[in-house]
C-alpha cells in the first residue's frame, strides 16, 4: 500500500536530474538464500535515504552492491539515468560513491593528513601541507572542526568518522554510504553525525544511512526504505515523512518492519492458552536477573514460564535477546538475581549441568557456535553428548551406535544430506537447523530456548521448524521463543515479552490487540 504511494508521488518537482543511483529489480542470490529479491530503489542528490531492516534483511548486500564489492545476479543499476554496472570498489569511487563503516578504516598510528594521502602511487611525494589545507577547507564547508595534524588514534570514534567523511568529500564523493555508522557512537556523537548528514544533504549530496535505530531514521531521513527478508516491503517517501509527526512515522515503520497486516484489522488465530495451567508450578523462573558481562547488559529480568507454554520474546535485534538466551543456558554469567528450574536454582551450574537438568538452547549462530562445520553431520548431532553411552563406552567411540543415531535423526527430522558423514558446513541452512533441532530436542527437555529459529530459512523449513516448536511445548517443556518476526511470535506464543535495551518492557497475553500493544512497546511509546 505504502509502496504504491512511494512510487506514485515520485518527487513533487519530477523534472529535475535523474537519481544518482537507481536500482531496478536488482536481485542477489547466495547459496540457499536470496539476499536481495528484485529491489527497486532510488538514491537522489540532496536526500538522506535511510535503509531499515533487521540483521539478515539484506542491507549489507545492498550496500556491497552499491560500493562495487558484489555484483547483482539480476536487474539493472542506473547511474545518473544511464545503465552502468559498478564493477569494483575503484569504479564506485570514480562514480563518486564512498562508504563509511561503523569501524573506522583509518590507520590509528598516522595523522589525519597522512591517512588522507594514502592510496596514491608510491613514487609520488605526498603533499602534506597542501592536503592539510584542502582537508581544513573541506571540513569547514560541512561545518566540521578537525585538526589535520591530529594522530588518528587520539580521536574519538565520532571524530574519526567525521574525518572519514571529510576525506570522502576531498576525493570528490557525491554519494555517501554510512553503514551502521552510529552503532558504536555515544548518543552525543550520533546526534552530531545526524546534523552532519543533514548539512551534507543540503550541500547536494546523496546520503545512504543504514541503522537499526528507528528514532534516528525518522529524525535524519528524507526517505525511508524498509527491507525484510531480502525484499523491499515499503517505505516512507519524503512528503509522507514530512507530514507525519515523529511518533506516527515510527509506528508506521514498526508496522512495516514487523508485520504486513493492518494493526487494527482482523485479528489472527491465537494459540490456545487454556492448555497452559498457570496455577501449576512454573518450570522456569527468572528472579531479578542482571547480567552485566555482555554488550547489552541485562537488567532486572523477571518472568515465569509454565510447562507447555511458549513465551515469545519480541524486540528489535540487539536489545539483549541473545544475552538472555546465553544467561539461561549458562554461556554468560549472571551478575545478580537467580534462575530457578523446577524449584531448584541453576544459575551457578555449568552449561553441561544445566543441559543435564533439561535446559536446551537452539542457537541462531548455527555455524558460528552451533556446529563444527568441518565435522561430519553424525558427530555434530552428538556434540553435546561426547563421552556418553551408548555412543562412547569407556571413552571409546562406538561408530555403529553413532551412525545408527544419525540415520534415525535423518529420518525423524527429514534432514536432507548426501550422507551422514557429510561435513555439516556443506548442508543448506535449513538442514543445518534440522541438525540442531534434532540434537536439542533429543531426550527429556524441560526448557527449550529457540533463538531466531526460522531466520534465513525457506518457507518449507520455516513450517517444519515451527511445528517442532509447538511439539516441544506440547510435550510439556517450557519454551522460550526469541524472534524478530512479530507474525511468528503471534502465531506461536501464549504470551509475548518485549525486550528493550536489556530490560523487559512488558509482557503481553497473546489475545486480540496484542500486535498493537507489542508495536507500541517496541517503539518505546508505552514508556
Amino acid at each position, binding site marked *: 500500500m505504502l509502496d504504491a504511494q512511494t512510487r506514485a508521488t515520485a518527487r513533487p518537482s519530477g523534472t529535475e536530474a535523474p537519481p544518482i543511483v537507481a536500482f531496478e529489480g536488482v536481485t542477489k542470490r547466495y547459496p540457499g538464500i536470496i539476499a536481495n529479491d528484485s529491489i527497486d530503489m532510488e538514491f537522489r542528490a540532496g536526500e538522506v535515504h535511510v535503509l531499515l531492516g533487521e540483521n539478515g534483511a539484506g542491507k549489507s548486500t545492498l550496500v556491497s552492491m552499491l560500493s562495487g564489492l558484489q555484483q547483482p545476479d539480476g536487474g539493472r543499476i542506473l547511474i545518473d539515468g544511464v545503465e552502468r554496472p559498478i564493477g569494483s570498489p575503484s569504479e564506485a569511487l570514480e562514480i563518486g560513491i564512498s562508504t563509511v563503516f561503523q569501524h573506522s578504516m583509518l590507520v590509528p598510528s598516522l595523522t589525519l593528513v597522512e591517512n588522507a594521502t594514502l592510496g596514491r602511487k608510491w613514487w609520488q611525494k605526498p603533499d602534506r601541507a597542501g592536503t592539510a589545507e584542502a582537508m581544513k577547507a573541506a571540513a569547514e564547508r560541512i561545518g566540521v572542526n578537525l585538526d589535520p595534524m591530529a594522530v588518528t588514534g587520539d580521536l574519538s570514534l565520532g571524530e574519526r568518522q567525521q574525518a572519514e567523511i571529510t576525506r570522502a568529500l576531498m576525493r570528490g564523493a557525491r554519494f555517501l554510504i554510512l553503514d551502521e555508522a552510529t552503532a558504536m557512537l555515544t548518543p552525543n556523537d550520533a546526534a552530531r553525525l545526524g546534523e552532519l548528514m543533514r548539512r551534507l544533504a543540503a550541500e547536494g549530496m546523496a546520503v545512504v544511512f543504514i541503522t537499526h535505530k528507528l528514532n534516528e531514521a525518522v529524525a535524519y531521513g528524507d526517505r525511508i526504505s524498509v527491507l525484510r527478508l531480502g525484499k523491499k516491503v515499503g517505505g516512507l517517501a519524503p512528503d509522507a515523512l514530512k507530514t507525519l509527526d515523529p511518533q506516527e512515522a515510527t509506528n508506521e515503520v514498526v508496522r512495516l518492519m514487523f508485520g504486513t497486516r493492518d494493526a487494527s484489522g482482523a485479528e489472527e488465530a491465537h494459540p490456545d492458552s487454556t492448555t497452559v495451567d498457570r496455577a501449576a508450578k512454573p518450570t522456569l523462573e527468572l528472579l531479578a536477573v542482571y547480567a552485566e558481562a555482555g554488550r547489552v547488559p541485562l537488567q532486572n529480568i523477571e518472568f515465569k514460564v509454565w510447562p507447555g507454554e511458549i513465551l515469545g520474546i519480541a524486540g528489535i535485534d540487539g536489545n539483549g535477546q541473545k544475552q538472555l538466551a546465553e544467561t539461561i543456558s549458562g554461556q554468560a554469567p549472571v551478575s545478580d538475581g537467580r534462575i530457578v528450574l523446577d524449584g531448584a536454582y541453576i544459575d551457578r551450574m555449568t*552449561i553441561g549441568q544445566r543441559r543435564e537438568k533439561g535446559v536446551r*538452547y537452539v542457537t541462531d549462530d548455527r555455524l558460528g557456535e552451533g556446529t563444527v562445520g568441518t565435522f561430519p553431520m553424525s558427530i555434530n548431532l552428538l556434540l553435546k553428548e561426547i563421552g556418553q553411552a551408548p555412543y562412547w563406552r569407556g571413552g571409546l*567411540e562406538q561408530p555403529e551406535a553413532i551412525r545408527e543415531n544419525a540415520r534415525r535423526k535423518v529420518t525423524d527430522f527429514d534432514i536432507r544430506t548426501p550422507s551422514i558423514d557429510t561435513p555439516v558446513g556443506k548442508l543448506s541452512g535449513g538442514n543445518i537447523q534440522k541438525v540442531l533441532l534434532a540434537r536439542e530436542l533429543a531426550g527429556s527437555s524441560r526448557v527449550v530456548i529457540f533463538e531466531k529459529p526460522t531466520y534465513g530459512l525457506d518457507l518449507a523449513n520455516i513450517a517444519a521448524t515451527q511445528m517442532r516448536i509447538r511439539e516441544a511445548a506440547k510435550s510439556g517443556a517450557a519454551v522460550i521463543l526469541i524472534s524478530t518476526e512479530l507474525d511468528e511470535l503471534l502465531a506461536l506464543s501464549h504470551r509475548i515479552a518485549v525486550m528493550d535495551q536489556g530490560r523487559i518492557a512488558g509482557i503481553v497475553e497473546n489475545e486480540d490487540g496484542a500486535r498493537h500493544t507489542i508495536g507500541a512497546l517496541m517503539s518505546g511509546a508505552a514508556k
Partner: protein
Amino acid sequence: MTDTVQTTDAGQRLRAIGGVLMMSLGPVLMAFLLSGVILLILKVNPFSYYGYVFGRGLLSPTGVQATLTRMGPLLLIAAALIVAFRAGIWNLGGDAQFLVGAVFCAAATPLMAPHVPIWLGLLAGAAISAIFGALWALVPAFLRAYQGLNEIITTLMMNFLGISLASVLVKLVFLDPATTVPQTRTLAVEDRLPTLFGTTISSGLIIGLVAILAVHFMMTRTAFGLRLRVVGGNASAAVHAGLAVPLLTIAVFAISGGLAGLSGGVAILGQYGNVRADWNPAYSLSIVPLVFLARFNGFAAIGFVGLFSILSIGAESAARRTGVPNYFTLVTIGILLVMLAVSEYYSAKRQKAGA
C-alpha cells in the same frame, strides 16, 4: 547389480587414495626436482648428491641404523605436535620442552643408575623428562587458557628462556665434576635403552612409534580426542556444547609438552647419554612442516619423519663429500612446504570447480 555398485565404490576409493597420494607425494617429487636445480646452480651434480644422501641414509647398514635411531625422538616430537595442532593450539615451544626434559633426565639418570635396576632407572629418567617438558609448557598453557594470550608468541618466547636455562643448568648446576668440558654426567652405555635385535638401532624407535600411534588413536577414536578436536575445530562451539575449554587447553599443553620432553629423554637415554652445554638440535621446529605435510595424520607423519631422518643423516655424509652444507636438508624441506601450499591451492580450486 550390487557387484557393479561395489566395483564403482572400490574404483572411487582407489581414485580417492590415488588423489591423496598425488597430493602427498607430488610435492615431494617436485621438491627434489627443484632442490636438484639449486644444486645444479651450485655446480654440484644433483644425482651424485642425492646418491650420497640415500646411499648413506637408506642403503648402507650403519646409515639405516642411524636413521632409524634418530627417528625415535623425532616421532615423539611429531606426536607432541599432532596433539596440539589438532586441538588448534600452536605449540611452537617444543625445542625448549625437549631440552628442559633432556637436561633434567641427563642430570638425574646417571646418578640413579648405579643404585637401581636398569629398567627402573630408564623408566624414572623417561618420567622425569616428560614431567619437566610438561611443566615448561604450563606457563603458555595458563596464559592461553585463562588470559587468552596467543600461544604462538608465548611458546616461542619460552623457547629462548628454556634453551638458555638448559645451558645455564648444564654449566652451573648439573656439571660433571669429572670433565673439563661443560656437560652433564654421562649415562653408562650398558644403562641406556636397549638396542634392537643385535643392531645399533635404539629401542627409542619403538617408543616413538607407540607414542605416535597412540596419539593418532586417541585423537581419532576416543571421546577425549574428539573434545580436543572440537576445541580446535570451533572454540565457540566447544563453549556452546559445555566443554571445559580452559581445562582441555591445559591438558593439551601438558600432553604436548610431556611428549616433547620425553623426546629429549629418549634422545639422552638412547643415544647421547649426556647433555653438553649449548646443545640444541632444534628438532621441533624442523618437524613442524613435516606434521603439516602429513596433515596431522599419525601414519603419514611416520613416513615423512622417516624421509626427514634419511635426508638429515645422509646430508651429513654428503656434506663431507660434496661440500654442500648439512643445512641443505632444510632447503629441501622448505621447498617441500612451498610445494605443499601450491598443491593445497590447486586442490581447493579443483574442489570448488567440482562443487
